């Protein structure tokens, strides 16, 4: 199974508004916590480890392209 990166959302504008709305009135810290829970909930929904690894790589790719790597 491959990660779906073609348009797949049933209502893109509605989703985006709901996503931003979910963070309304939260501190940055609370927002981070919400995002973390959201990632976990969605990951479980996807389920397939291969797809999740592809999603992690796709998300990470933007960092690799735009920011210098942090070295410890």
């Amino acid at each position: 199974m491959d990660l779906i990166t073609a348009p797949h959302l049933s209502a893109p504008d509605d989703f985006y508004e709901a996503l931003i709305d979910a963070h309304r009135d939260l501190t940055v810290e609370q927002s981070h916590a919400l995002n973390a829970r959201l990632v976990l909930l969605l990951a479980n929904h996807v389920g397939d480890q291969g797809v999740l690894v592809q999603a992690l790589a796709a998300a990470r790719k933007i960092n690799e392209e735009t920011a210098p790597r942090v070295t410890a």
Partner: protein
Amino acid sequence: MPAEVDFQRLTFEYVRSRDQSVAPPARHPVVVVGAGPVGLALAIDLAQREVPVVLLDNDNTLSTGSRAICFAKRTLEIFDRLGCGEAMVAKGVSWNTGRVFFRDAQIYSFDLLAEGGHERPAFINLQQYYVEGYLAQRALQLPLIDLRWKSKVVGVAPHADHAVLTVETPDGRYELIADHVVACDGSRSTVRELIGQQSKGRVFRDRFLIADVKMKDLDRPAERWFWFDPSFHPNQSVLLHMQPDGVWRIDFQLGWDADPEVEKRPENIIPRVKALLGEDAQFDLEWASVYTFACQRMERFRHGRVLFAGDAAHGVSPFGARGANSGVQDADNLAWKLALVLRGAAPDALLDTYASEREFAADENILNSTRATDFITPKSEISRLFRDAVLDLARDHPFARTLVNSGRLSVPATLHGSALNTADTAPFEGRMVPGAAAADAPVTRADGRDGWLLHELGDGFTALVFGDDASLQGAAFAGVPLKVLHVQACGHAAGAGHVIDRDGVIAERYDLLPGSVVLLRPDQHVCARWRKPSAEAVRHAMQRALALH
């Protein structure tokens, strides 16, 4: 009932050995260094296989303090084979329920007894001094074990076909020649240091306090309780575990900055315990220790005639009970191989497979242990964020509980890819793949009594044959005995060499059809399985499992 031995106060007498006054030095087939759980288990196993063993210990007492307290089902099955499992289970606290708390609320509980049809429980809790005590009692029954207390190894000179050990005793030093040396002398192994080897890996910058407290009122169930970030010990984890004799193990995470000398003082421990148990709790502090840990191993567990087992070879964090359990499994893997090599029934290469199989198992333990440690003690802000998100979700969402990792509790490694395995030639279902430790199951024995499958297995190889197929009867291959155990479906009459699969559990766990054969090694690991093998195929698989090709 006879009074119980106080293993914590027991001392063993140093006896001068004849070897101390002979020249040239006496030669022995096996010298085991270290009479802890691993060394004792190995010595017993070898003696039961008719190999004489010299077992050296630098001390003359058993474990100081409770130390390893969780002994897993597989380890108990090995102790059964060594003749002391029953005493351990009778004394130990069997537990199945674990509860996980985040801050001050329980987020979920789990039951380890998900599957019936096993003689032994998933775990018992038992102080290490009891485990060593029962093993030592068993060892003392075996005349082939020469147990020498107050005998510290201070020199190791490895040679191509032996090693020379220098042993220090109250009567001075003497030399011993060993065909094979097995170092079971713990995480700070002297033997390892003496041959210039190291155990390498990841050291965790954290400290933990163990407090064993004897409670005056025993009004608590035998359960494992684990807290993440409780208000009585903020930002850290706490583990509570029951041991026999009304003793509770409490494990407090302290952080790297804690001063171990200060934390060890009773006046500092008691308030921590009271914060957990309540101001009014009545208890005595039995033992305390502050520890750090590393997940590490030696690159190779075999260096010619010097082999390493247990903590000497590999170290893990305590989360998951993988230290002592994996060490006993090392001994289980090594004993039959050493015995067959010494008898000339298998080549020296069989000992190389001890190293490769147990290095593989150590990697699995280290991986599990490292993952648990990273969950319990997150190393970055983002790691902590996800950890807390998992815990927050776990309260309401079962999926998140699968991510909570307070230690994935020890199960034996399945030795996938071992050179001793014969690959399947037909499809099979289930977990009993080549390399797996044999699963137990209830049986009716030939004498009509109820029993357990693992007790019916041979000391050498065993072929489980489903049905009446007589073609393997009475076989012995490559000079090594093979016990043929016919497994009959329920409803058949059992004859000699037969057991009845009383509840159909064997057929299910091993995926057996009439004519199916599963070949088990002397350490009860599956090494081959077939639907309808020829005697030739079984002989080949045994040769492979003896490293004869």
